[in-house]
């Protein structure tokens, strides 16, 4: 019934001697047999014996929304505590772990990241058959449990609800799981760094996790990560809407490459070809030219870059904004800085539990920032690097190691993981970047960094068609290809600036995680198209 696949776990550290394939198969067969026997026995017992618990346990028929269904109030696992002691409750949760011991069976029930211990004891209302049935349920099955909340004298170790346990009176399987799991939730939730030498060193490797993402996502850390990610998105929308921004939706199928030309995915479009948008920038700018003044967009962005790094995805969620200003692009730059600070503050204040849950598994340093954000000039950054012995030319871009180093220097000095680097050299920015009128070498552009990695690159855009044409020529860009872009500024356009962040990257860096695949629910990279 299950495809023959050994449990994939990556043992870190001194790996135990692996059993041979043959042994594995044998063990598997035997366990299957045992299961079959157990389930058969359970069914038989139900039928044959005069069971005091008959009708109190079993497999529920498939829930298909029939018209007569029980009216039951369910209690969430996270709400089970001392105050409910003595009360009778219904709980729908997954079977996290199960341990049968003759006349009693210990079960840990899990709902999202919350766990509670339940016990099934043979008594005058609970039959031996029911205990046996409980012991035979496979892990990760979804159960309906009726139980009495009981206070425990000493805290239950390993459960989130430590002061109570459930004394079970009814037990029904709503949806059963296959007995063989490709990964164990317990293994997948084990802290990466554990000081306790006696704890197990079994970890689940990244690819196993991603291949079995629905199981992997059930771990507390993953539950937290994606709630935090939703939080970033919500805070971004809330803060911008509050400031009078309009959310727009830009096309993702476009006729020509938005920037440069390389790195775009080609898709067939009826008789011809089209491309997947690698940035909503042109459309944001057109919305500005169309008098929307302040716009933002949240949507998928595609990059056909064959880079297999910890921070590149071929499809990610872009949070982009563009904004008209009066006289100086700093109006926009500082605004974006404040929006990001607002998001960080929101996360700090509203998601402390989730951040703690991620910390428990991955153990990262908390994210620090300053309010208002720290702004450094590119030249200052170069000077700080030079002091540390890394020379970067005045018209040279920062390479990744230099960015990381600067991040560390800034952190040591100001204790902030977020800062803005202003006035980048003109030579390293795209053609539509407004040159600095006071210094021919620099431009009105800025990058923002989290934990020493660039998260946003923005600038004042040239809104004058003539200057834009001149700059495009200077960069050797084929004018015919960008004619429609230049045309959008021909009928007058307010000065504007903007920028965009990648949702997954921001969440990864905020949480101090080491891989962007941890913050993408179903990541896409050059080597992964499924699930």
């Amino acid at each position: 019934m299950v495809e023959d696949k050994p449990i994939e776990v990556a043992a870190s550290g001194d790996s135990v001697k692996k059993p041979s394939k043959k042994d594995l198969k044998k063990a598997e067969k035997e366990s299957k047999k045992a299961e079959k026997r157990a389930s058969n026995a359970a069914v038989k017992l139900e039928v044959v014996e005069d069971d005091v618990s008959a009708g109190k346990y079993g497999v529920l028929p498939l829930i298909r929304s029939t018209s007569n269904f029980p009216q039951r109030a369910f209690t969430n696992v996270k709400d089970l505590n001392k105050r409910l002691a003595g009360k009778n409750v219904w709980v729908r949760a997954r079977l996290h772990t199960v341990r049968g011991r003759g006349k009693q069976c210990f079960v840990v029930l899990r709902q999202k990241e919350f766990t509670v211990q339940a016990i099934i004891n043979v008594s005058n209302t609970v039959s031996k058959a029911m205990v046996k049935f409980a012991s035979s349920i496979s892990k990760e099955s979804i159960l309906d449990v009726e139980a009495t909340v009981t206070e425990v004298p000493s805290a239950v170790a390993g459960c989130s609800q430590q002061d109570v346990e459930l004394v079970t009176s009814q037990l029904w399987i709503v949806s059963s799981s296959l007995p063989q799991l490709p990964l164990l939730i317990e293994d997948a939730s084990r802290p990466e760094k554990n000081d306790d030498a006696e704890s197990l060193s079994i970890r689940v490797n990244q690819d196993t996790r991603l291949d079995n993402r629905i199981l992997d996502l059930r771990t507390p850390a993953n539950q937290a990560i994606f709630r935090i990610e939703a939080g970033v998105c919500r805070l971004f929308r809330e803060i911008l809407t509050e400031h009078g921004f309009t959310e727009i939706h830009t096309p993702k199928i476009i006729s020509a490459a938005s920037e440069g030309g390389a790195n775009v995915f080609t898709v067939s479009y009826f008789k011809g070809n089209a491309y997947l948008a690698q940035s909503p920038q042109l459309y944001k700018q057109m919305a500005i030219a169309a008098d929307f003044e302040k716009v933002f967009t949240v949507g998928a962005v595609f990059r056909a870059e064959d880079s297999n790094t910890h921070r590149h995805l071929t499809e990610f969620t872009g949070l982009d904004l563009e904004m008209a200003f009066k006289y100086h692009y700093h109006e926009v730059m500082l605004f974006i800085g404040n929006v990001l600070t607002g998001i960080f503050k929101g996360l700090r204040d509203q998601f402390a539990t989730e951040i703690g849950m991620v910390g428990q598994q991955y153990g990262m340093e908390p994210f620090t920032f300053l309010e208002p954000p720290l702004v450094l000039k590119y030249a200052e950054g170069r000077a700080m690097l030079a002091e540390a012995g890394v020379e970067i030319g005045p018209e040279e871009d920062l390479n990744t190691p230099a960015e990381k180093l600067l991040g560390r220097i800034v952190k040591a000095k100001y204790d902030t993981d977020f800062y803005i680097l202003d006035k980048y050299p003109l030579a390293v920015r795209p053609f539509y970047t407004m040159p600095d009128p006071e210094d021919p070498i620099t431009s009105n552009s800025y990058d923002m960094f989290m934990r020493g990695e660039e998260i946003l690159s923005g600038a004042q855009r040239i809104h004058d068609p003539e200057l834009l044409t001149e700059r495009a020529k200077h960069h050797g860009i084929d004018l015919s290809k960008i004619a429609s872009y230049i045309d959008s500024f021909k009928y007058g356009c307010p000065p504007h600036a903007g920028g965009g962040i990648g949702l997954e990257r921001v969440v990864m860096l905020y949480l101090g995680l080491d891989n962007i695949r941890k913050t993408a629910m179903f990541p896409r990279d050059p080597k992964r198209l499924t699930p």
Partner: protein
Amino acid sequence: MKNYRNQEMAVLENQQKEILQQLVELKNQMLEIKKTLQSNKADLGLKSSPKKLPSSSLKIENVPDLIVNANPKNPPYSLLCIQRLWSNIINLKVKTYTHSTISKITKEAERLSSELEGFKCTESIPVISLRLIWKNVGADVELLVRHYPIMGEVNVLRYLSRLLQGPFNYELSPKCLEIDSVLDLCYLLLCSKSKGERINLLQQLDKKLGKSGWFCDSSSVSIADIAAQSTLKNIPSNEINQNLTKWLQKCTQQITCKV
């Protein structure tokens, strides 16, 4: 043989004389250069301020950017004193930030922030830029110049006074030891945990002030006054006696009239 030695000595002596002569010339040349440089500096508008001290007494080139971490529960009021009282010598430009370890800053800290940031110095005098970060640090203020922090408000004051040299370096004053002991008392006051401890220290501080107008019998506000007024503002006002309260009012007046 003796003659020969004498001759040798004479040659050596002559050589020495020549070298000394050259050194004197070199020194004169250097002085000349220094003079022209100073007059150039003066031409750059540094002379315009009437209260200006001779620029040679101020050496504030190569001052690194200063970063001060302070707990919003213990605002370093001495920064405000320095900014206002020394405003004819240096332009202390302050930018304040709130660190993520602080979710809400106190009213006192907020007021100090806006007073420090709002100060506009019009004179073209050397600028020292300082970033004040409200952070969850202890009662001690931290000053980061290079890689190691200078802990404690009075020690920050000591550092600044040395940095500015000239009349602000209290170490050149004959009352240096007296001032130092006032600074130490201030430090202990901020560290004190109990009321009894504080009362004892306040009595000692009161003795230092005595009946004179300023601390250490000074004719005007000194670094001791700056430290003491910031410290006293950070402890409960009902613990401060009349003499010190009167002095504190006078001190505050001195500063506000500079606004």
